[in-house]
């Protein structure tokens, strides 16, 4: 089924993956439109403003295939990726394929989340709860201007569907654990999650990308659609610790109705090339959106963060706080686009991007992009890039801490503000530990958060 011209190229994967069960066929027009969009848009190059600082040559040159067989992975290995002390429900995907044998059973989900909450794999929802998912899936990605979104539309495979009914608060976070293993050929997967919080509902979802090998080459092209109805509260975490040979494109689309509250927390630690898109639309009055992120690069990692916050209703607040810590030859990109529609009077938008460079060769490109069409708007943005302050290092050393520990503590301190915004303490602790483990010569430094 591969195309004759470009066998094994990524666009061929779209065709080879079209062995779709009949019960999913109602989505085929959407998939077809995605394929058309993909072909129309084509791979971006540097002339594409959105991809100006991110070179996709290595990705384009990789021959990706769809996952074929279930990977051999032990429950022990999977258990090692649990978030310590977090009382959650976990749905496990390995190389993009849902693993019922490794996931929490449906009765546990019902028990923890409540029987009136839907939480299942996406294909189950497509096949068995069409009336529930059809009003939502693809609605925020239907007209893609980015090729990866088009690719995702064309390739909807699996993922998680969560629907929390009106007025229901779900206390237990849903942990979507995506594990990548080393495969014979690089695998491309296109996970899609659809999260629906009805009026006044509360839910927390963690997307967690990990690997069993830093040599594993693959692409995770993930799309999550969040629908927060009036007064709903959705907390979304993206914890990205992919293989340092892998590609990850994660796109969070969110639609916020009146007085909805969406928190997006992102921590990028792994990956060879990562593109993190956060794309909320504040569509109802008095909606609030927090966009909190940290990217920690070393080696030759490339971590690209593209925000597009669309204020489409009056009296909304958005808060963007992104920090980068970059070592070795790693590179960070931060694009903070804020679009304030003409109707969005009394918008209050804040954007801050701060970067700490730990080496002479680390680089960051940061750019705010404000498009303001309303006249009564408060919109502030700021961007800084610097090194660890030698005065602070001296202060810590003068209390007996070695230079390495002093620097590690100060780097951690720089990041701590972002961790402080995360509501889940076990997630804060895990991320802090993983960040510290990534810092040069910080072994033995223990920090409580």
């Amino acid at each position, binding site marked *: 089924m591969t195309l004759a011209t470009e066998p094994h190229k990524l666009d061929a994967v779209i065709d080879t993956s079209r062995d779709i069960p009949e019960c999913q066929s109602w989505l085929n027009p959407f998939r077809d439109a995605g394929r058309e969009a993909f072909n129309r848009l084509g791979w971006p190059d540097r002339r594409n403003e959105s991809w100006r600082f991110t070179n996709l040559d290595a990705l384009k040159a990789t021959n990706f295939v769809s996952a074929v067989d279930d990977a051999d992975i032990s429950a022990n290995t999977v258990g090692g990726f649990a978030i310590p002390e977090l009382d959650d429900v976990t749905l496990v995907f390995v190389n993009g394929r849902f693993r019922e044998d490794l996931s929490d059973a449906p009765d546990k989900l019902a028990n923890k989340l409540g029987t009136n909450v839907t939480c299942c794999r996406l294909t189950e929802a497509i096949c068995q709860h069409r009336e529930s998912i059809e009003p939502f899936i693809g609605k925020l990605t239907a007209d893609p201007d980015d090729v990866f979104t088009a690719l995702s539309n064309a390739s909807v495979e699996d993922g998680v569907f969560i629907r929390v009914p009106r007025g229901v608060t779900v206390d237990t976070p849903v942990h979507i654990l995506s594990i990548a293993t080393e495969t014979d050929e690089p695998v491309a997967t296109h996970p899609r999650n659809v999260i629906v919080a009805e009026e006044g509902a509360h839910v927390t979802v963690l997307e967690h990308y990990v690997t069993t090998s830093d040599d594993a080459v693959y692409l995770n092209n993930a799309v999550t659609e969040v629908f927060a109805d009036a007064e709903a509260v959705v907390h979304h975490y993206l914890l990205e610790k992919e293989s340092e040979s892998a590609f990850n494109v994660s796109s969070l689309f969110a639609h916020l109705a009146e007085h909805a509250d969406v928190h997006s927390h992102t921590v990028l630690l792994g990956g060879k090339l990562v593109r993190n898109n956060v794309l909320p639309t504040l569509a109802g009055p008095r909606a609030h959106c927090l966009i909190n992120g940290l990217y920690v690069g070393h080696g030759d990692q490339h971590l690209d963060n593209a925000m597009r916050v669309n204020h489409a209703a009056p009296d909304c607040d958005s808060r963007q706080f992104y920090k980068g810590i970059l070592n070795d030859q790693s590179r960070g990109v931060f694009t903070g686009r804020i679009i304030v529609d003409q109707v969005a009077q009394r918008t209050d938008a804040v954007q801050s991007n701060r970067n700490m460079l730990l080496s002479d060769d680390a680089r960051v490109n940061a750019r705010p992009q404000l498009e303001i069409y309303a006249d009564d708007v408060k919109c502030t943005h700021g961007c800084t890039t610097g090194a660890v302050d030698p005065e602070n290092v001296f202060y810590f*050393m003068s209390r*007996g801490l*070695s230079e390495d520990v002093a620097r590690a*503590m100060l780097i*951690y301190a720089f990041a*701590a503000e972002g961790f402080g915004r995360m509501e889940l303490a076990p997630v804060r602790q895990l991320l802090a530990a993983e960040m510290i483990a990534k810092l040069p010569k910080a072994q033995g430094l223990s920090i409580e958060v």
Partner: protein
Amino acid sequence: MTTPLLDIKNLHVRLEDDPAVEILHGVDLRIMPGEVHSIMGPNGSGKSTLAQVLAGKEDYEITEGTIAFQGEDITELGPDERANAGLFLAFQYPVEIPGVSAMQFLKAAVNAKRVAEGKDELDAAQLLKHFREKATQINVPYEMLKRNVNEGFSGGEKKRFEIFQMAVLGSVLGILDETDSGLDIDALRIVSEGVNSMRSADHGFLLITHYNRLLEYIVPDHVHILVKGKIVKSGGKEVAHELEQTGYAPFGVHEPVGA
């Protein structure tokens, strides 16, 4: 014979980035265990430079002379090694570090010193007990430890926290760099009581100050006047009183000494 806590001989110091600028031109100073010394000097005399050089700041280069701490030459040691040997600098302007709690900072510092001394690290319970004892001794609210290092501290709180750190680390020599600057009388009194509570036959202090106000609360055994990078006069505490009357005018500098 008792070994001096600190023995500075013919210390010449210049800026590392600008070698043409020599700041200290041959300073001699010996502090014996149990002694409190004060170095007084006008602005630009080099007194803060001396404090920073003693603590091991890298911005300065020692071109001549030696610094011995408890009989060991420390001129080649880093700031952390000096601190772990028992030398403490109370900063004139302690830096604020949002993101690290005072507790975490001091736990790490106490255990770094213990490791340097070849001792076992203290566990959390032992550390907390130690902190509580010292907080009582120095009159520091224990709650201060839960805040981030110096973040949002008032001038007085910062200086009290500095003295508290010295007590917690058990340093034997405290160099107080203009600890009195920016303090009101109440804060000055509390800070001074903390210092006085640490005075003992083993401990020494070097009080660096522009004014004699601090010396009314922490009475020194010896006072030295530093002008233009040289000690121009040494004596007992009466030197500070004389200075209060004359100012630095007899030394060619026209600045008041009273606060």
